[in-house]
């Protein structure tokens, strides 16, 4: 059974997924960040593969990508860093990134090596479902990786069903129509999450975008299986020289 599926069988509410850009704040902090997240209550870890032109991201994650790239982060380096990660990290690991660097690496080689170092799933926001169905989905599945599609408040019910049927692991419910880190308020999110819940989807639902503290995490968890924090954690890490302490303080604030 996939590690992600196993997680949701054991835990179906208040599941916390935390995003961090690989190679941020330092090239070699990736594993420290992962350990700190696991030790302080993160149920899943989403590692961002930095890209020069991250279209779906706001300024904070863009900036972390710029720094990670300047630090020298590449997919190859990331896989080298993850090689022994499974000795210490038990929670599911998801790689998030844009298609172009993955295509240059070689899509099949990427999936194979990701699986080999213990990665459980992929989020590639600019991989459309047509190309997923006709070309890439089979490669992802053949390597035993989960693939997580995004849905937004603008996504039609019919399309939500379709994307749910193509996803494995969980479905990523974007809380509002925005790039990451926007401060659009979450007032309308209740109706949208209730709609998703009523649809009785195949996959658990995690809510992302705009989750930044205890209050927003609680709001998301009221109608979904859990939530994803990205920008707020990246902001917390900015300028820190103690990843473990910063992460502990940040997650205590969210989970207390």
């Amino acid at each position, binding site marked *: 059974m996939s590690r992600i599926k196993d997680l949701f069988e054991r835990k179906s509410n208040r599941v916390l997924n935390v995003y961090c850009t690989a190679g941020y704040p330092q090239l070699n902090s990736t594993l420290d960040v992962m350990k700190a997240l696991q030790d302080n209550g993160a149920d899943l870890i989403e590692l961002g593969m930095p890209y020069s032109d991250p279209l779906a991201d706001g300024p904070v994650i863009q900036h972390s990508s710029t720094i990670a790239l300047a630090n020298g982060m590449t997919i190859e380096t990331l896989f080298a860093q993850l090689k022994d990660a499974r000795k210490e990290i038990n929670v599911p690991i998801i790689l998030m990134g844009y298609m*172009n660097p993955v295509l240059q690496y070689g899509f099949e080689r990427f999936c194979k090596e990701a699986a080999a170092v213990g990665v459980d799933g992929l989020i590639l926001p600019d*991989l459309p479902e047509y190309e997923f169905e006709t070309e890439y989905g089979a490669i992802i599945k053949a390597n035993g990786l989960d693939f997580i599609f995004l849905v937004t408040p603008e996504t039609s019910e019919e399309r939500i069903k379709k994307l749910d049927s193509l996803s494995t692991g969980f479905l990523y419910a974007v809380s509002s129509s*925005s790039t990451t880190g926007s401060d659009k308020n979450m007032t309308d999110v209740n109706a949208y999450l209730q709609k998703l819940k009523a649809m009785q989807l195949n996959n658990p639902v995690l809510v992302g975008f705009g989750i930044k503290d205890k209050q927003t995490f609680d709001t998301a968890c009221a109608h979904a299986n859990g939530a994803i924090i990205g920008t707020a954690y990246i902001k917390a890490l900015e300028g820190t020289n103690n990843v473990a302490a910063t992460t502990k303080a940040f997650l205590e604030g969210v989970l207390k």
Partner: protein
Amino acid sequence: MMETTYQKPSAQGYYGKFGGAYIPEMLHRNVEELQSRYLDIMSDAAFQKEFRALLKDYVGRPTPLFYAKRLSKQFNTNIWLKREDLCHTGAHKINNTVGQILLAERLGKKRIIAETGAGQHGVATATVCALKGVECIVYMGEKDIERQAPNVARMKMLGAKVVPATSGSKTLKDATNEAIRDWINNPNDTHYIIGSVVGPHPYPDMVAKFQSVISEEMRWQLKEHTGTDLPTHVMACVGGGSNAAGAFYHFLDELSVQLIAVEAAGHGVNSGMSAATTQLGKPGILHGSKSLLMQTADGQVVEPHSISAGLDYPGIGPMHANLFDSGRGIFLSATDEEALAAAFEVSKLEGIIPALETAHAFAVLHNHPFKTDDQVIICLSGRGDKDLATYMNHL
């Protein structure tokens, strides 16, 4: 896969291997709305009537096809200039913005966003927004705001808000990123008027169709002048490729016509300061479509360089990537210096000061030989007023 031609992409927006719509879910509804409606809207009789009337009475079409006598003599062939520089606002860009503003109106959109490099597309967008009384926001790289100051002033005078893009190379690529992010954040009331044949399907096809009026006119105009509607060559500069797409469009499936696209080599193709995408690029994905892309071995987009802001882009539209890949098009390049020299040459020989972008197309006349009886049409995509500051430094 469905049958495609050089002109017509597949249902999924592919020209051969290139195209598609590689967009995040946040853009899906808007892009899908465009995909499902653009052909119907554009073929509607009332739309066509309004579009054609604006092209005639507002843009000033048809633009002349002018026999360039002294230039022809200089290069010992027959050179015709398609005078897009005489369009209202000074470049071909307005053919597309007139079409897209009418489309946006039919989609019920109240807010228009655009990216711009040289500022010509920004001005053309601000212009049609003023014409229709619609809010207009133009994203422009910080570096381009400096080097194309007259166009920034024009956009502001036309009532548009110009927002600087401060990430990356601070040029066209980054302005496009910011425009796409704006669209993600404003999913309901906003239409994004892309300025070239780039972006997710259906933009490359839609923009090519709006610009195809250029080659539609070339055919009947050349026939009026020479008795035949097929030239031997059509030449155009390529940034994203919209003036080239418009100039090539009605010749794409006429295989006797050689199509010559000219890219910006910057300081030289192998100088590390270039924008010659077909020579330096590999297949990749940028701004929602799979095409040729200048990138590192790790798939990070390379920051291009060209003296002309409109060609300073690391990609190329998927239609052109397919023309290159299939061999249907000939792709040449001109350096900054060659383009500058050509701008001065054309000005003195024909009394026409071309845009720096356009000057690249003229520059390759020096190293691509033509026969005395060839009929060569050059798309004179824009006029040089916006580039006077650069030209003055070289007087």
